[in-house]
């Protein structure tokens, strides 16, 4: 394949460069977008089509130990959605948690070219990296769980912040991760150590440690900022899923004290009401706070009706959900680092809580003043499969469709929200922001999410269609690093994506402190724990430490 | 004497060690062709350590030697009528039923066999 290409006649949506639907050429050379290419360069005629940067997903569960357990225990779900191979592509299984190759191809079919796996304990780093390597097409990276790390808890307990920061940096290097992930900080310790108890408020004491979740949150937000990570601490707040949790969410955002932090699937943390009783919407309170605090970014974690799987490092949450319906349930404890719970789930239109969650997600989208800081996700597969993105886009872009859908949901729940009063419709430009430009910017991926000169030539071309769900369901052309791999909706190649990691500097002396901790409390040898450089190929994204 | 007993194929450390030396080596063959029988069952059948016995399951039969089963020191083990043989080609030969009941796994730890012995030397050589 020639390394140069020109896309002509397409309407370009490139919000990072303020191009909003203009018809102009995109020139590609050696995988990058360039100023110009020779006149005889092969062309793609995008007449009547919409050209956007490849989609960027900031938060999905696509690989690693819990994803794989969720795959393994749902044969009944894969069975009716096989993913046949083609001359160019591998086969696989679909369903709510597709196999790795199928995940890549299906994301790519939607026009996505970069996806971040949202939560993996560092002990399983090799596992997630192997799976990511087998996830077709996409560029990817993963967030490493640190909110329940016993060693870090100890450093924090002793107030040894310098060592804390060095240890975090060591862990990021050892696990080849992209950023720090917090899931219900302190909660897993309660769960594993105190007979399945949980922690609700961020100022409660963590079981067997003399610290609170707030201290963990603050320390990790600061560390991510100090280390200059391209994406700040990525936080799944405490108290997720419980009525009245919006105060915890506000407390968590305040704990950032003006420094950069990302709150993930914030919809699940925007509930009012009394604990144990029906939730209410606090989308406005959450939106107001975010609108006023530019240091905070979030992704929505929209709930979509239909099948989902709750799979989370928040083990007590999965246990709570198990009591809703005694379905098959997985729990997996990871020594010194994390917990995990998995349970198949279904969001139903007639159920009060499910409707409320659906409506709150849409409220958050529609109330966001700055779409650059409130980006699209379903927390796949927790709020629903990523295959729902096109439908979600239509809900955002098409007020009439939204009203029509709202007519079929639980009205009591719906009317307790302000969804019907929100008339806003997203433009294509705004969709390009929340699905590409903003997540790329929030991730600090400078070559992604835009079509300016020097950007990676990850490009999606959609047929323009009034029904936005149809339009975003299958891209007509998709390019990765300048290689056309979907042509007229069919795969014509199977390019291999990259894995991104960060590698912040740290004082090597911290290893002398971590090693004895491993000897005592881990089941693997300290020297075998860091992922070897030969394990998989990764690309290091630079960090810019705060001086 | 002939009796019906339950044969439970099992793993032993010795078998594991011999496995590493090679499955075609004598140590492995010896370990996987020695059946362990509770002392009181041995006494009833008139068996001594090293005696040869015939095990029959369906149409298949094998000849193995026997030894008394070592029991836990602290507990009273009441399991009689159960004999144990380390996994190997001999225990597999007695797995005559390949039915896995839709699991992929035959009932390989629960084989009903006829045990006959002690065998005369010439018979066990043949």
């Amino acid at each position, binding site marked *: 394949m020639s390394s140069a290409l020109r896309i002509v006649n397409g309407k370009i949506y490139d919000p990072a460069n303020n191009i909003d639907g203009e018809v102009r050429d995109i020139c590609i050379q050696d995988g990058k977008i360039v100023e110009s290419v020779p006149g005889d360069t092969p062309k793609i005629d995008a007449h009547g089509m919409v050209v956007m940067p490849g989609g960027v997903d900031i938060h999905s569960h696509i690989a690693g130990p819990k994803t794989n357990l969720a*795959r*393994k225990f*749902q*044969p009944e779900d*894969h069975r009716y959605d*096989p*993913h046949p*191979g083609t001359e160019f592509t591998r086969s696989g*299984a679909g369903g709510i948690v*597709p*196999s790795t*190759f*199928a995940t890549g191809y299906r994301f790519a079919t939607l026009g996505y070219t970069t996806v971040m796996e949202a939560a993996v304990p560092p002990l*399983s780093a090799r*596992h997630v990296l*192997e799976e990511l390597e*087998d996830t077709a097409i996409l560029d990817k990276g993963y967030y490493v769980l640190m909110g329940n790390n*016993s060693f870090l808890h100890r450093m924090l307990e002793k107030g040894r912040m310098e060592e804390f920061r060095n240890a975090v940096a060591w862990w990021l290097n050892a696990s080849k991760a992209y950023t720090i992930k917090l899931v219900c900080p302190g909660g897993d310790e309660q769960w594993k*150590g105190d*007979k*399945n108890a949980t922690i609700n408020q961020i100022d409660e004491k963590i079981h067997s440690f003399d610290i609170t979740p707030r201290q963990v949150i603050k320390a990790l937000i600061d560390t991510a900022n100090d280390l200059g990570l391209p994406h700040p601490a990525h936080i799944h707040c405490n108290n997720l899923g419980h009525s009245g949790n919006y105060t915890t969410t506000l407390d968590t955002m305040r704990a950032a004290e003006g420094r950069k932090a990302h709150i993930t699937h914030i919809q699940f943390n925007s509930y009012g009401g009394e604990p144990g009783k029906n939730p209410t919407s606090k989308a406005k309170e959450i939106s107001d706070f975010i609108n006023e605090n530019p240091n905070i970014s979030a992704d929505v974690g929209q709930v979509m009706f239909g099948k989902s799987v709750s799979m989370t490092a928040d083990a007590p949450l999965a246990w709570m959900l198990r009591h809703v319906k005694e379905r098959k*349930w997985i*729990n*997996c404890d*990871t*020594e*010194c680092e994390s917990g995990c719970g998995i349970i198949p789930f279904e969001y139903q239109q007639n159920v009060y809580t499910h409707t409320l969650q659906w409506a709150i997600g849409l409220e958050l989208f529609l109330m966001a003043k700055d779409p650059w800081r409130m980006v699209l996700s379903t927390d796949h597969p927790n709020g629903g499969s990523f295959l729902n993105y096109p439908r979600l886009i239509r809900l955002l872009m098409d007020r009439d469709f939204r009203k029509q859908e709202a007519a079929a949901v639980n009205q009591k729940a719906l009317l307790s929200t302000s969804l019907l009063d929100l008339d806003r419709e997203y433009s294509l430009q705004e969709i390009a922001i929340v699905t590409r430009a903003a997540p790329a910017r929030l991730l600090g991926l400078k070559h992604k999410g835009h079509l300016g000169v020097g950007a990676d030539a990850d490009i999606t071309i959609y047929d323009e269609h009034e029904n936005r769900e149809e339009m975003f369901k299958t891209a007509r052309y998709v390019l990765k690093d300048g290689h056309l791999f979907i042509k007229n909706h069919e795969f014509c190649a199977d390019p291999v994506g990259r894995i991104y990691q960060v590698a912040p500097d740290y004082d090597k002396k911290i290893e002398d402190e971590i090693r004895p901790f491993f000897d*005592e*409390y881990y*089941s*693997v*040898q300290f020297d*075998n724990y860091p992922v*070897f450089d*030969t394990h998989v190929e990764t690309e290091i994204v630079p960090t810019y430490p705060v001086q | 004497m002939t009796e019906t007993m339950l044969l439970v194929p099992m793993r032993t*450390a010795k078998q*594991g*060690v011999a496995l*590493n*030396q*090679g*499955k075609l080596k004598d140590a492995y063959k010896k370990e996987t062709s020695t059946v362990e029988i509770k002392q009181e069952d041995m006494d009833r059948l008139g068996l001594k350590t090293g005696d040869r016995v015939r095990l029959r399951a369906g149409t298949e039969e094998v000849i193995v030697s026997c030894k008394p089963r070592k*029991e836990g020191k*602290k*507990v009273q*083990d009441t399991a009689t009528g*159960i004999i144990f043989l380390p*996994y190997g*080609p001999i225990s597999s*030969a007695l*797995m005559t039923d390949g039915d*896995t009941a*839709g*699991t*992929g*796994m035959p*009932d*390989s*730890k*629960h084989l009903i066999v006829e045990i006959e012995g002690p065998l005369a030397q010439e018979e066990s050589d043949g």
Partner: protein
Amino acid sequence: MDSSVAAEPNIRVVKNATCTFCGCVCDDMELTVDLDQKRITKAKNACVLGKAWFAEHSVDESRPVAMIEGKEVSLDEAIDEAAKILVNARFPVIYGMSNSTSEAQRETVKMADLLSANVDSTSSVCHGPTGMGLQGVGEPTTTLGEVKNRADMIVYWGCNPSDCHPRLSTHYAVNPKGMYIPNGRKDRTVINVDVRSTTTTNIADVFVQVKPGSDFELLWGLRILVRGGKLNPAFEEQTGVPIDVIENLASRLMSCNYGILFFGMGLTMTRGRHYNASALHMLATDLNEHTHFVVKPARGHGNVTGADTVMSWQTGYPFGINFNRGYPRHEPGEFTTTDIMCRGEADAACIIASDPMANFAKPAIDHMKKIPMISFDPKPTPTSQAARVAFTTACYGINTPGTVYRMDDIPIPLRPAFESPFPSDLDILKPLVKRIRELKRAQY
């Protein structure tokens, strides 16, 4: 991360090496290697099985790298013949993988996809039923370090780790001190449930002897008690365990802080199989209403867990997978190797690092004798003897690097001790896949 120190000429010491004999995958081996003789002379920290594993995997350079019909051939000739057998087959079966690295397993599944073959690991005759239990009812589980740090209640049910996984007790579960288990063994209660006493019984505080074939009923009885019910006398009749013993067992399980049920083939290889495993998983789930409880199958081969893991991520299913229709399907009993062979369905087989000719049921072995087979093994086995194409391979972990998954799904790296003149599984699989692709292209 320099792991080797030259102690004296031609002697190399490899620290933090990994033993891949059993599912414990201990990674704290210190190997002394005689590079001249190409053998490991000492394996510090290894158990009796591990010591044998390291001592006995020297290299026999007199063995041919490949044979066809028992005659020595070049590697290329053998790869070509193997590719032809597999491409010409209508129902090729690829089986084994549990003594192979995850890198080789990934390539194996790729080959199966390319061939539209059937692929299955030794899981199907090991903890396959446990996997089916997981599919039915889920499982609460853990990594081994959390057992070391927290478990004050260890149950060994239908397994005998003292013989089969010696360091499961000494290194991970029973003896070590942990974060919340400051006194090690003294802070833990060990319960052994089995049809007979074993060497594991010797380390247990409580031994419960269950009638052969009635584990399910005993598990069911425990579940009833844990869920607040009462037992009728039939439980005693059927399980051979007195009611007060079952009650005592249930109350011990409920009153611990962090309990774990390790279990083995005593459940999965006996009548009830997958549902025995389900019952145990459900018991552990029920116990979580009272305390924290987890289960862990004590898995056998070094990387059998990796085979499940790799197949799950590439195909969605852990074992018993068929690609005949161009996409993976999973059906234990239908696409598991024992069944396929017993029904006489396969017309060729590729056996990677396992020995079904020694382990399978008689009718399966009878069919395998009739079809062309390809074998990958470091040592001669009944399977390699019966194979039309037999490859001699380097031993994973001893000669080849890569990754294996411990019984708790934790990936562990390998640090080879010395080089083998023989290729690794992956070294053969890669050109084999390439050759298969060429032959398939030529077909169209």
